[in-house]
């Protein structure tokens, strides 16, 4: 196997492993659009990274946190629903990123690569980022698992039972930001949400426990990465979108396969 292909596979698997369990929580907490909004702001983060001369991934994490903060502040003023606010933030930050990029004449940024991913161009330092960030996210999620599950089911009940709701929610947002920064190179900011939610959604039919669903989501995501890369080589299609289509195919197949006693 070629080196670039091996790196692509390793990078894709690293992202899929972390995205699966996080994606299940995004589904349970109905935060798909929130994740999408953070991802849209990713490009602005890349520009920020270039301006501040810091790692682009770090720039993405910072920008995601700023957008999450902006959302919390905007939610305080009543009158507009959260999905409206998210729609505004998503497209405002994406446009801001594109405009800011135009001002950076000295910096060459592979726009299509950031928007749709460039998994075949993953280098060794990207791999360190992906696996380091991905494993960190998984470990943090494991630590947060119990209180996060409790506030997902009923926030006030969890609060009475002693869960510090705000720090847990904040930590979860941080994890989403981290995984977006890590996954950007693989599927691009416009397709990241798909890698978070499609494998998790595909896992629902076959899962009987929260942990089972998280593990299955990682498994389906990994399978989608393998299948997508293979299809991309076979038919010379763009790799990131091929991975997403592979995940969607798995999701669709889930409806054909009879689920064993969905209880």
């Amino acid at each position, binding site marked *: 196997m070629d080196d670039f292909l091996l790196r692509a596979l390793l990078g894709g698997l690293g992202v899929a492993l972390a995205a699966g369990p996080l994606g299940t929580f995004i*589904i*349970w907490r*109905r935060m798909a659009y929130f994740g999408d909004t953070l991802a849209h702001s990713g490009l602005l983060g890349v520009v920020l990274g270039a301006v501040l001369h810091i790692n682009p991934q770090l720039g993405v994490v910072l920008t995601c946190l700023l957008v999450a903060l902006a959302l919390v502040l905007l939610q305080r003023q009543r009158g507009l629903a959260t999905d409206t606010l998210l729609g505004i933030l998503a497209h405002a930050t994406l446009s801001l990123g594109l405009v800011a990029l135009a001002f950076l004449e000295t910096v060459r940024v592979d726009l299509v690569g950031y928007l749709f991913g460039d998994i075949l161009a993953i280098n060794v330092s990207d791999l360190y980022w992906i696996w380091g960030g991905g494993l960190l996210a998984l470990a943090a999620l494991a630590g947060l698992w*119990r209180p996060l*599950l*409790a506030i*997902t*089911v*009923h926030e*006030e*009940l*969890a*609060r*009475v*039972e*002693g869960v510090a709701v705000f720090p847990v929610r904040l930590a979860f947002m941080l994890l989403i930001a981290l995984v977006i920064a890590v996954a950007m190179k693989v599927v691009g900011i416009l397709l990241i949400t798909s890698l978070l939610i499609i494998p998790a*959604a595909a896992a*629902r039919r076959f*899962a*009987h*426990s*929260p942990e*089972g*669903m998280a593990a299955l989501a990682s498994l389906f995501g990994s399978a989608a990465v393998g299948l997508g890369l293979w299809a991309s080589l076979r038919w010379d299609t763009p790799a990131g979108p091929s991975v997403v289509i592979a995940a969607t195919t798995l999701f669709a197949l889930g409806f054909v396969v009879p689920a064993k006693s969905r*209880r």
Partner: protein
Amino acid sequence: MPRAEMAARTISEERRTLPAEPLLTVENVNLAIRGNPILRDVSFRVTAGEIVALIGPNGAGKSTLARVALGLMRADSGRIWRKPGARVGYMPQRLVVDDALPLSVRRFVTLGTPASREQVREALVEVGAAHTLDAPVQAISGGELQRVLLARALLREPELLVLDEPIQGVDVNGQYELYDLISGLRQRRGCGILMVSHELHLVMAATDHVLCLNRHVCCSGHPDHVARDPAYLELFGLDGARHLAIYHHHHNHRHDLHGAVVESAEDGAHG
């Protein structure tokens, strides 16, 4: 139901004579939401082994008061004191688990408190929902969910139980069963219970202290006492009073459409 029978159901007579240890004290609480007064100068307390019921019409602020007492909402003014370190069990009025989350009843009740399978079974047996142990929490009926919620609260071995409409969705036979269970809890476990309900005659049968709320405390006291109170009769009418006592009363205040008190000429002792 005849009064004698009702009195027999009143457990307070057999109540253990423990020194009353306060678990929760609410003093002079005021709360307005977006300029709309919800609670006005509300005070009450719950001691160990005591069942306090909050009754009142829809929009009277019952659930809000329970949430303020739990510290889930902040009052604009007033004082809330909970016994430091007291374990609190809470049964929220409404709980819907997303269908996308595969969660069995057993997992659901241990979300707040780790417990062994045996402890979970015991708690579910106690509330009469043992058969739901391995069912997905989305698949059980509303009445079963109420029992399961109570089991989750009990697993915490609470000193203070706050139950918001604990019998909603439960069929009539089950309602009596649950009230017996709740009043039994106080005796077996000695915990204090704050209960929100609008099932008047059941509340009257099982509680020690009733707080009749309509944004302010209209009247409060022992169920027998409250049932004779004009303010109670005004709020619930003869329908609510029929179970307890017939009492001809004169108003000392009225409520306008927003629930605000409109004082009439003579001011009474309550309100």
